[in-house]
């Protein structure tokens, strides 16, 4: 059972309440595809990913980034049972999308860095710790139904 302090809950809720999904979503996904190019293997049908510029301006990638970021909403609303909230999504990522679960961690790291860049010094060590704890629970839950 993951235990959340009041402070951690407040930090997570606050970050997502003020999140610009249309900005952060595409940025996080693009960064993942650029910094860890092997993740591009999952985006064969998404058009031109030839270089950083192409990736950053690719509308399909942008739209997908927003979708993925919104995927975190259910975890924010169900922080006390993220494991079960994502059971079905985990099965889907495993059996339908065949994504190596280690890549969830890479995307989570990129999301952390995009938010850090946006918030600057307001992204304190304590806020980072809470946010990373949240993401690691999500990452864990998404990898759970892989057999």
């Amino acid at each position, binding site marked *: 059972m993951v235990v959340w302090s009041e402070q951690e809950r407040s930090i997570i809720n606050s970050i997502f309440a003020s999140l610009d999904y249309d900005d952060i979503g595409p940025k996080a996904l*693009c960064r993942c595809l650029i910094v860890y190019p092997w993740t591009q293997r999952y985006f064969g049908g998404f058009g031109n990913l030839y270089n950083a510029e192409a990736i950053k301006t690719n509308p399909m990638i942008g739209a997908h980034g927003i979708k993925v970021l919104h995927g975190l909403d259910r975890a924010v609303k169900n922080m006390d049972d993220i494991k079960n909230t994502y059971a079905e999504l985990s099965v889907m990522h495993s059996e339908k999308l065949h994504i190596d679960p280690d890549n969830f961690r890479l995307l989570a790291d990129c999301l952390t860095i995009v938010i*850090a860049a946006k918030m600057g010094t307001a992204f304190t060590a304590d806020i980072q710790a809470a946010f990373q704890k949240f993401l690691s629970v999500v990452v864990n839950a998404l990898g759970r139904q892989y057999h």
Partner: protein
Amino acid sequence: MLRDKEKKLIRELWERLIPVAEDIGSDALLRMLVTFPGTKTYFSHLDIRPRSAHLRSHGKKIVLAIAEGAKDISQLTVTLAPLQILHAYQLRITPSNFKLFSHCMLVALACFLGEDFTPVTHAAMDKYLSAFAAVLAEKYR
């Protein structure tokens, strides 16, 4: 492998960061200690409270070493030889922790540079820090 363009980017970026070595270094260290509490076990001999003198001087030391290595990345093994010996025989920090510190360094850089910490810069920096960590652990076994 780091391409020539990336080596140049890294070299120039770290040169710009030397004046703020203490700030960046202590920030990265603090982030690591708070986010990954297991790393605190290596610092029982220091005062690692936020803004402590130990944290600032230790952070500065680390950043200056990283900046030194960035001056000529193709010579990393030569530049880091003394630090290799220190980490292998004296400090013996479990190498997986280098990854944790590198990640927190990337976060610290993102906070400091904002939009200037572009995906291309991030990629080059990640590659450099990975290479740095790998060289640092070379004499472990």
